[in-house]
């Protein structure tokens, strides 16, 4: 047996009283793709940050290619042959691809010779690994898939033999993800070692050779991918059996609750983000909006939720609503029976520095049940309401006095979902309901959405997770570049067809 490319022995790391990593040991063989899977907060990112020199482990050793190695900072990591592709790219937007690649690796006072060498090197890498990018394009002009390739090129240019990718497919279309996987395969053939961090079971099954599962800071299992199955991995991640598919009866659509006609949105910079779209959502159905992030879905939710002005017509229960002016705000929308679980619970849905009970009234703080008299709010009523919602939605810990930021992602989301669903809205807008939410809570939130649908409410679901769209929606609309590319029924379409629509390619059927 050859020496492992990376071996971690007994790594532990605590942040205050929180043990993020507990005695973790893994061996990754050279020329393999090793997956690390686990829920949010399981300690995956901490472990990789230790390997890349961002954090110092409290205990444990790192061995690279059979040698014990100290990695106090990222410079040492690069020297040890480790490259990292972050979830959020670290690129300079107004630099060219070439300039970004050499940034921090300039080998002299003058830039020109470095750039010339880098250009030649880049050409070679592109041929070897299918990593085609235009070296002179500006980062801000190229798509996310391309930007990710630049990140990989950056690592390879620095002679990385070990590549760590943190949630690499989160921002990609299915086709782009396939392309990425082809690149990873060819890197593997050349003997590079790859660590893939993800929470998507499908990716693990598709590309990895071995997989390690993390749960609550501990490594619960390391298995050969060929010997395991998605349900088994899910169970290892959560610690109990989970339903991977949503169980729901066929929808019984009723009257039109939401009608959108010729809606357009232009942002502050004068860019048209939504271009003349029309659709409708009926009572008792879930309309899923699929699409790669940044194709107008956020603006659609903002316009419907009342904090983005728009043109066109929106009818709710047959009555038009104001799209501009003082009666187009979130409060008026709520009064019209529109509830909204926003895409970004930390920036929009919750005040992170408010306690849970204060957040439970957020957006509904004008309602009479929260007022003690004309001037003062009724804190006791808010706390009682929070306790009730926490119990019904199984928010843990069920303590209304905790700050919102001290809950886990899943429990924060449950707080938001509880607040919005319990209002018994006619129309529920839902954006990325399970982003950064653990599998256990995903299951619960999906059940709540289906239950609300079965009560005859209309739901507009926006998600970049195609699996989520496919399993929850009764109808699917695909957005690309601010337009709706087409509508499909989930039973009559495939992930592949939707993927093409998401990339802006219309099939003959459309």
């Amino acid at each position, binding site marked *: 047996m050859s020496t492992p490319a990376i071996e971690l022995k007994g790594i532990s790391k*605590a942040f*205050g*009283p*929180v043990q993020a990593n507990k005695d973790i040991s893994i061996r990754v063989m050279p020329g393999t793709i090793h997956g690390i899977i686990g829920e949010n907060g399981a300690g995956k990112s901490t472990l990789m940050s230790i390997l890349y020199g961002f954090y110092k482990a409290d205990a444990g050793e790192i061995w690279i290619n059979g040698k014990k190695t100290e990695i106090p900072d990222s410079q040492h990591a690069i020297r040890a042959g480790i490259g990292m592709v972050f979830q959020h790219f670290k690129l300079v937007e107004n630099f060219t691809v070439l300039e970004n690649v050499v940034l921090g690796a300039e080998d002299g006072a003058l830039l020109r010779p470095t750039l010339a060498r880098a250009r030649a090197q880049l050409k070679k890498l592109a041929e070897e690994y299918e990593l085609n990018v235009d070296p002179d394009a500006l980062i801000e002009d190229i798509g996310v898939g391309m930007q990710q390739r630049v990140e990989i090129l950056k690592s390879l240019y620095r002679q990385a033999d070990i590549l760590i990718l943190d949630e690499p497919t989160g921002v990609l279309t299915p086709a782009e993800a396939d392309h990425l996987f082809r690149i990873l395969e060819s890197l593997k053939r050349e003997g590079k070692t790859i660590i893939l961090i993800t929470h998507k079971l499908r990716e693990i099954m598709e590309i990895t050779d071995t997989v390690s599962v993390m749960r609550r800071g501990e490594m619960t299992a390391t298995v050969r991918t060929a010997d395991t199955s998605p349900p088994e991995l899910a169970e290892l991640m959560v610690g109990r059996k989970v339903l991977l598919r949503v169980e729901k009866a066929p929808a019984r659509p009723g009257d039109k609750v939401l009608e959108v006609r010729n809606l357009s949105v232009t942002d502050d910079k004068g860019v048209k983000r939504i271009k003349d779209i029309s659709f409708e959502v009926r009572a008792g159905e879930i309309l899923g909006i699929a699409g790669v992030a940044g194709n107008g879905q956020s603006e659609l939710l903002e316009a419907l*939720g*009342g*904090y983005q002005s728009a043109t066109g017509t929106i009818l709710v229960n047959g009555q038009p609503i104001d799209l501009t002016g*003082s009666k187009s*705000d*979130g*409060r*008026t*929308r*709520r009064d019209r029976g529109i509830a*909204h679980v*926003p895409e*970004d619970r930390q*920036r*929009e*849905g*919750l*005040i*992170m*520095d*408010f306690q849970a009970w*204060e957040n439970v*009234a*957020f*957006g509904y*703080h*004008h309602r009479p049940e929260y*007022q003690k008299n004309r*001037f*003062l*709010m009724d*804190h006791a009523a808010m706390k009682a309401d929070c306790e009730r919602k926490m119990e019904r939605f199984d928010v843990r810990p069920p303590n209304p006095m905790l700050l919102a930021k*001290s809950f886990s992602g899943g429990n924060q989301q449950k707080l938001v979902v509880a607040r919005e669903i319990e209002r018994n809205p006619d129309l529920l807008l839902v954006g990325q309901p399970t982003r950064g939410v653990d599998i256990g809570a995903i299951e619960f939130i999906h059940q709540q959405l289906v239950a609300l649908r079965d009560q005859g409410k209309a739901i507009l679901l926006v998600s970049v997770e195609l699996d989520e769209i496919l399993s929850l929606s009764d109808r699917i609309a695909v957005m690309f570049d601010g337009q709706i590319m087409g509508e499909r029924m989930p039973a009559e379409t495939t992930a592949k067809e939707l993927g093409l629509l998401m990339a802006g390619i219309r099939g003959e059927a459309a």
Partner: protein
Amino acid sequence: MQKMPAWADVVLIPLISLLLAAILSGLVILAIGENPWEALKLMISGSVGSSYAWGYTLYYATNFIFTGLAVAIAFHSRMFNIGGEGQAMLGGLGVAYVCLFIPWPHWSLALIGATAASALFGAAWAALPAYLQARRGSHIVITTIMFNFIAAAFLNYLLVNVLKPMGAMDPATAKFPAPTHLPSLHDILGAFGIPFSKAAPANVALLVAILACVGVWLLVWRTRLGYEIRAFGHSESAAKYAGISPTRIIMLSMLISGGLAGMMAINNVMGEAERLVLNSTEGAGFIGIAVALMGRSHPLGVFLAAILFGILYQGGAELALWTNIPREMIVVIQALVILFTGALDNMVRMPLEKLFLALRRGQTATTAGE
């Protein structure tokens, strides 16, 4: 996760900051050849050692409570109101007009009228910067600073050219009529048989300031508007999602802030000087920033910090009077306190947080070991 207990945040950090500032001040006094221990004793006896001393300390503290509350309420909506100085000057103008041109039958009615006028004038002076911030994105720090200068120039013009009584040499208004004279702490406490210095300027405005503390506390933590102000201050994007109008919150919080700063005038103009003079505010608007920072934008904290700065002000004046320590040095000491309690907060906070984390980890380790 709470990094350290609340009492450490509220009590320990200001105390350590204060101690550091005191030590450094002591070194400075030592360097110019004076005895820091004697200086400290003089400062304390001069500011809290007698009812006369208290009378001055509380008078200054009253100013600082108003301006401190003004900065604090703006902080809650994440507005940095540096214009307390100008707003307080304009508040003085409001007081002067009300006291000079309305024949009040009794001081209590005059006080109500003057309070309203001072708040109105102060709020008006904050309205334009607030509007520019809310609708045009002009930074509130820049505009409120500018408005301090405009206020000073404006008052200068009015006092020299308009309000100065005929024949007077002094750029000040006429003395306010007797029915507008506010009872001092001597008069108030005397009614209960408690002796208090007759000469000290502390007056009934202190009680108004304490009422303002309670009012601000109710507003921020008990009303819908306070809820919206805090929500907006923590997260503008979330506020928009919830249907809270940024324009409305910026305008309202700045108007309240300006109003509170303006209300300072019932203490210094109406209660003490009993006429409007040039530069009546004496920098209290700026001290309010330090008071709000040190008081963590909480009315109780502002109240305590205002008392502390009152002590520093009065003690410093005594020091300049009785020792060879030059007046400028007093400003240095006050500046050190502001620096340590306001600006260098993190210098004390970070090591303290680490210490508490280490202590807690030690505790968990022992419990785990048992």
